[in-house]
């Protein structure tokens, strides 16, 4: 039951919004909500693996920014929108790899390592653009971010595939089992012959890749590479993961709950917009909803 706290809150909010206003429960609105938050959800999905493995990735926002400007840069300077869009996940994965190597080689705690690397990457993004924006001529480049299959945006499809894949990875593969065990007890995993550092490294690589994929969607939607594009994303992603009940100590967690976390926060935003509520109360409400979700899960944990 405690695992369903975030789902219960999500459904409750959904019902409340549905009965409060007719503008909420429309296909367009729901697709918009899904689409708007797909990049964040993708980052949170991979972030779940990182947190389960006992780590923290505070650099996803900065990786998003770098991947974002790299995509635009490549699209403009190599003249190929497709290469540009492919460059973003690659850049993301590369930076994630750097994180992973730094964390495992220098044996730094990932909290501090990714805090530092996020500063470095953020600086990098600014340097690539010289502080300006890189505008990509529309056309092929924006097809991914703005197009879709029927009314369903590609972003939603990508998120669905990525989340399912990650869930499969976590629950049905040896890698997932190792992620769980390294996060649960790294020493025991080591004793069982698992290459703990390699597993950790992979989770950061995966997180970087996810930030890169998210950036692909973001940059393609906007058609412009911006060095600030990812600011703050990392905290939202981690908040969603923890809101989903994944333990910050690692060892337990679930992908779908993080996605619920993202969309719980998204519904609050959307609700304020479409109910035209006083925006002064939005942060306050968000805080209260988070506390309520957590209290709900704690209350049900008690015997």
């Amino acid at each position, binding site marked *: 039951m405690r695992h369903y706290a975030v789902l219960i809150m999500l459904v409750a909010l959904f019902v409340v919004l549905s009965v409060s206003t007719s503008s909420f429960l429309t296909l367009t609105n729901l697709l*918009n909500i899904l689409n708007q938050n797909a990049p964040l959800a993708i980052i949170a999905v991979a972030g779940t693996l990182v947190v389960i493995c006992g780590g923290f990735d505070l650099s996803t926002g900065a990786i998003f920014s770098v991947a974002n400007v790299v995509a635009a840069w490549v699209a403009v300077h190599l003249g190929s929108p497709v290469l540009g869009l492919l460059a973003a996940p690659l850049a993301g994965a590369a930076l994630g790899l750097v994180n992973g190597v730094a964390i495992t080689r220098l044996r730094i705690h990932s909290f501090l390592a990714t805090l530092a690397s996020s500063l470095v990457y953020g600086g990098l993004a*600014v340097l690539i653009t010289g502080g300006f924006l890189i505008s990509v001529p529309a056309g092929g480049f924006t097809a991914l*971010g*703005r197009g879709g299959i029927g009314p369903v945006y590609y972003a939603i499809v990508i998120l669905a595939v990525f989340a399912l894949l990650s869930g499969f990875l976590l629950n049905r593969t040896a890698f997932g089992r190792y992620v769980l065990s390294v996060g649960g007890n790294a020493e025991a995993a080591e004793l069982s012959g698992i290459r703990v550092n390699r597993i950790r490294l992979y989770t950061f690589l995966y997180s970087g890749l996810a930030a890169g994929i998210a950036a692909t969607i973001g940059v393609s939607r906007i058609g412009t590479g911006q060095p*600030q594009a990812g600011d703050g994303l990392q905290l939202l992603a981690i908040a969603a993961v923890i809101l989903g009940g994944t333990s910050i100590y690692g060892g337990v967690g679930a992908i779908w709950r993080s996605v619920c976390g993202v969309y719980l926060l998204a519904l609050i*935003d*959307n609700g304020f*917009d*479409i109910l035209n509520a006083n925006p002064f109360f939005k942060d306050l409400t968000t805080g209260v909803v988070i506390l309520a979700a957590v209290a709900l899960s704690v209350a049900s944990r008690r015997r």
Partner: protein
Amino acid sequence: NSDVSQVYSSASAAPSGKSGQVRIALLASSSQNGFNKAVYDGAVAKAKEYGDVEVTIFDGKFDSQTQFNQVQNVASQGTYDGIVLVPNDNVGIAAAIPAAAQAKIPVVTTLFPVGPNLTELKPQVEGIVSTVAANTEENSKKLAEGVVEYCEDKDPCRVAILIGQLQFPFDNLRNKAYRSVLDGHPNIKVVATGQGNYDRDTSLKAMQNILQANPKLDVVLSNADQQTIGAQVALESAGYDLSKMYVTGGGGNQEAIKQVRAGTWAADQVDFPNSMGRAALEQVVNAVRGKPVTPVIDANTLGPVPVIVTKEILDEHPDFAGEWAD
């Protein structure tokens, strides 16, 4: 496998003249900010004049993604007939505008143009019907020209620039504009460029540090009033007399006008957010009602005073107090 953006672009943004109650969404870059408040107040005042127009403010939280979502949400909702925008990010938001165009919701942008070109005021994106803004580059040059004039018979004339954040494209543009004017004069030395981040405390720190390396300063060229207020604290507690220097601000808030009137600050680049709000609301209502719309309204012409004010100019306009407070 259809292309959603194609659907957007094939739709026309021109609505077919609605009569009766009009509802306008004002997408503020942040609702917790004096400048945006003034835009909103102006829009509300104008709406009251109409009588059948209603304005609702949205909080953009100084976050481009939030604002992006808000444009989409407003467009998909069908509650609103038009949008007045104070963009957080002039380029990114452009991608959301087609959704509004498709829903036949006209958008008027204020303060900044929307689109990749930072200095082109003519609507660059389908769906933007009017831009109520000024040319940032030109205004910045005008502000810097005041510095040149002051420095004329000073050699060297030491200038410290206090800019918001160079990573913001518009600040980068401003900085480049300042330099393009100042660097042409060999007597003018830009000795420091600090980042004030539109924040008093940050600017106070930056100014203290700059003074450390450059105890002799003649000019502080700041692009924002909040920054100048912070710098002023640093300068005054270090014993500088601002009235003997050349200190500027940007924004034209009430505190700035007071300081310029008192002769403490030498000049200020004035914005007219309240008038901008009025003008933008007028244009968006015109668009909704199917009346003719002016595609570009130069914000510099909206107020009772020219865009760069000095003590002399303000003396000629004793009633002008600034259109916003933070």
